[in-house]
């Protein structure tokens, strides 16, 4: 998902972004990707905590924007399935930023899809405490060393991890989303009305 | 040697009148508060009930409150919960007994006590017990904290309140309300001119005793929901509601009597029927002041309130007493 070379050379800003991405990638020992103005640095899951310790310290990315995950899978209960098969994994993302020029880097790592587990960074960025609780209840990721990994939003008795792609939206099963009317092709497009329903 | 039976009858009638005055005064001041606050906040306030100016709003409210179900929380201590509003009301009503409206002690007052002002200060503490009872018996933590705050606050402000009146008592040489008024009428100017420190302290302490802003921590809607009245509804809530406004009246009457010359006004013969009107006008000014403050100021914090009482008001009022006493002897 790297940006095309032409886009990179358009402006100084893009060059500065690349320079920033390389600096972060170099410091945390990861691989940088710049996509549509967003810097993403992939690190190994074993280097996760260390990488974030570096960003919060030497790199001066002291501001914790957010921490969350993506469930990459080919079997989805809701929404679109990937057109091309993806590597099944959880991608854990942590967006950190500095407080001067607003450069933001998303540190990313891949977790095993069967038993996702990673070291908690709640002691590096205290604000990660809640974000990790959210990711734990929504994706079932185990944050080792987290002080209080209880449910954040859902009732204690809730079972399942709602943001996993295999978690069905029950209301959609009972009553299909009528929104497909909105996405019907217009007659002048010459194609047959779409029966595709993103919300089934 | 026995007291005359007629005395008891007369007293009973006067007390009944004083009791009837409470709801009326409560409604008048309640209405005034609604209307005044509305105009201070670019609103209209009540305008529907009664046709013009919404004058019947408080009557309508009263009818509504009486009709409402009297809910008592299941875990509440029922007898204490039920009696608390009555005790608060009792303290309020008892204050009205000694208000001198007119120089004639036959018409102007229920009973002129020799220890008048002392009585007023003593009886006003009865409401505190009622507030504590309400706070404790509701079985609600907000109520409890509200009750505790009320108690702490009333204990702290009872002292400056009492001490602030001492200066007046020294100057007037009597504790009788009638006596204090006649002393001011006789000398031609109110004690507020000499006892302005006492007056200021008295008014601040009064606001605290009435638990009105900036000292309304016991109610503190944004913190304690409704403090010690959280669990009350219907008729019992009405008691607290009316008691608050009636208390504003009675404390203002006492302030007006002690510091502003009561029914006396320079150049007007106090023996006429104008006297009660003059008194009510003075009371109106003080009540307006309280309403104005309430809708202007935020709330203090509990520790700031205690600091104000113990570190400022009490020392200043003691100093005031000393100065007054020395001047009284010297002059």
């Amino acid at each position: 998902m790297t940006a095309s070379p032409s886009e990179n050379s358009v402006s100084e800003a893009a060059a500065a972004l690349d320079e920033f991405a390389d600096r972060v990638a170099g410091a945390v020992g990861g691989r940088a990707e710049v996509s549509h103005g967003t810097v993403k640095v992939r690190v190994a899951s074993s280097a996760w905590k260390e990488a974030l310790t570096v960003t919060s310290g030497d790199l001066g990315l002291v501001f914790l924007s957010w921490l969350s995950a993506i469930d990459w899978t080919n079997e989805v209960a809701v929404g679109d399935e990937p057109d091309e098969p993806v590597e099944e994994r959880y991608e854990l993302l942590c967006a950190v930023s500095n407080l001067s020029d607003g450069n933001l880097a998303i540190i990313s790592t891949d977790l095993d899809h069967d038993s996702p587990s990673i070291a908690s960074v709640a002691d590096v960025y205290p604000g990660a405490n809640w974000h990790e609780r959210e990711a734990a209840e929504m994706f079932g990721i185990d944050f080792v060393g987290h002080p209080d990994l209880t449910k954040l939003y859902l009732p204690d008795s809730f079972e399942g991890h709602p943001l996993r792609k295999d978690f069905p939206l029950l209301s959609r099963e009972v009553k299909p989303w009528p929104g497909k009317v909105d996405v019907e092709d217009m007659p002048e497009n010459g194609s047959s009305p779409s029966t595709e329903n993103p919300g089934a | 040697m026995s007291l005359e039976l007629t005395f008891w009858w007369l007293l009973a009638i006067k007390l009944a009148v004083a009791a009837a005055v409470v709801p009326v005064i409560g409604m008048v001041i309640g209405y005034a508060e609604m209307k005044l606050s509305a105009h201070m906040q670019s609103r209209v306030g009540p305008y529907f009930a009664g046709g013009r100016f919404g004058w019947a709003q408080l009557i309508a409210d009263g009818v509504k409150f009486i009709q409402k179900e009297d809910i008592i929380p299941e875990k509440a201590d029922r007898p204490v919960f039920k009696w608390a509003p009555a005790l608060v009301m009792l303290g309020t009503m008892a204050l009205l007994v000694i208000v001198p409206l007119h120089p004639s002690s036959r018409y102007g007052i229920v009973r002129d006590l020799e220890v008048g002002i002392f009585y007023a200060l003593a009886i006003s503490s009865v409401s505190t017990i009622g507030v504590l009872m309400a706070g404790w018996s509701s079985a609600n933590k907000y109520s409890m904290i509200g009750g505790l705050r009320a108690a702490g606050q009333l204990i702290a402000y009872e002292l400056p309140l009492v001490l602030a009146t001492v200066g007046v008592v020294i100057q007037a040489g009597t504790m009788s309300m009638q006596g204090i008024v006649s002393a001011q009428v006789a000398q031609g100017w109110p004690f507020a001119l000499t006892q302005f420190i006492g007056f200021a302290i008295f008014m601040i302490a009064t606001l605290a005793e009435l638990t009105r802003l900036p000292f309304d921590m016991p109610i503190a809607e944004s913190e304690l929901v409704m403090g010690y009245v959280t669990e009350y509804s219907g008729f019992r809530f009405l008691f607290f509601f009316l008691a608050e406004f009636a208390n504003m009246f009675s404390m203002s009457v006492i302030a007006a009597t002690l510091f502003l010359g009561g029914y006396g006004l320079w150049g007007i013969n106090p023996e006429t029927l104008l006297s009660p009107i003059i008194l009510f006008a003075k009371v109106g000014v003080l009540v307006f002041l309280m309403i104005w403050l309430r809708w202007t100021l935020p709330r203090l914090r509990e520790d700031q309130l205690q600091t104000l009482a113990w570190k400022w008001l009490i020392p200043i009022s003691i100093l005031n007493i000393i100065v007054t006493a020395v001047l009284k002897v010297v002059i």
Partner: protein
Amino acid sequence: MEGTFAHHLSEAAVSVELETEGMTLNIGPQHPSTHGVLRLIATVDGERATNVRPVIGYMHRGYEKLSEVRTYPQIITIINRIDWVSGFANEVPFVVAAERLMGVEAPPRAQWIRLVLTEMARISSHLVFMASYPLELGAATPLFFALRERERVLDLLESVTGGRFHPNFNRIGGVKPVYAAGPTTKKAGMDIPSGFLAETRDAMTKVLATCEEIENLVAGNEVFLARTKNVGVLPVDVGASYGVSGPNLRASGAGFDLRTVSDYLPYAEFDFDVPVGRNGDCWDRWWVRLEEIRQSARIITQAIDGLPSSPLQAKVPRIIKVPAGETYVRAENPKGEMGYHLVSLGGLGPYRLKIRSASFSNLSILPWILEEALVPDFIAIMGSLDFVLGDVDR
């Protein structure tokens, strides 16, 4: 409560220090000052808190999951319900994110209108704060002053978007075409309503006057100062590590405003200041917001003076499919940094949409900032953080 009174008395006799009993105080989920449904489990000793645990989730609506089953235009209708006091501002970063992935840019006029309406959302959000914060400290009157002004701003928002709270006005590639002369004469031209610019200019003058009024009423008030100065002090580094953003962080002294460093809207063409506080206490947080209202009014006035003319919509396909890719767009919303991390696989809806909401992080500071606080200060501190529970739970 076990034990006996007599037993307790004898205990009190031997221990010199009076032991007060710790009490667990449950504030919320239904409470006058929780701005929605927030629950705080506070352990208090007397009136001092020893431990505070916020419990959220009473308003969790699962927008991130819902977004996965909706098309892009449909998502716009739900995300403006995240922070409902500044609904318009919620939409902007999302459409910008989608536009970036599509390689589309909204025409200048649409961007300027977005900017004007975002600033109006900021004013209305901050005016709600100006209204509710003194109320939480017990002063009811500023509420009416502020809400009166907010009504003016909401009327303007409504005249353009048709919605007061949930404008649903942004479109990918621009803004919704509105009919200048009313819906019956569609051909009359699609633009903001006639008279909008003049009324906005007028309204901004009045908003500035009200700011003056509120400042006179509140800022000069000794009691207000006593309740807010040096209460709930938040150092910059602590705030940043918790992700506290927006006015809350600027009040602590960080001059960090995404409007000045990011290009999601053409803020670079405007002249405005970023108010920065000194101590990071409740007072600074109040003051920063008041100043921001003024700055927003300044931006709006500049924008309506120089509103460029162009179509309101860029050319986009009738059916919006966002090419595969991912991006994170963040915006300076009234409550702080709001951002959308959009992951698309090229379909009608996103594969994953992470919603970074400001209030969530702003609220996560509560256990830290409320420790050892007095119960009355709870309200002062919580109120000064200016969160909306819809923005916390999403």
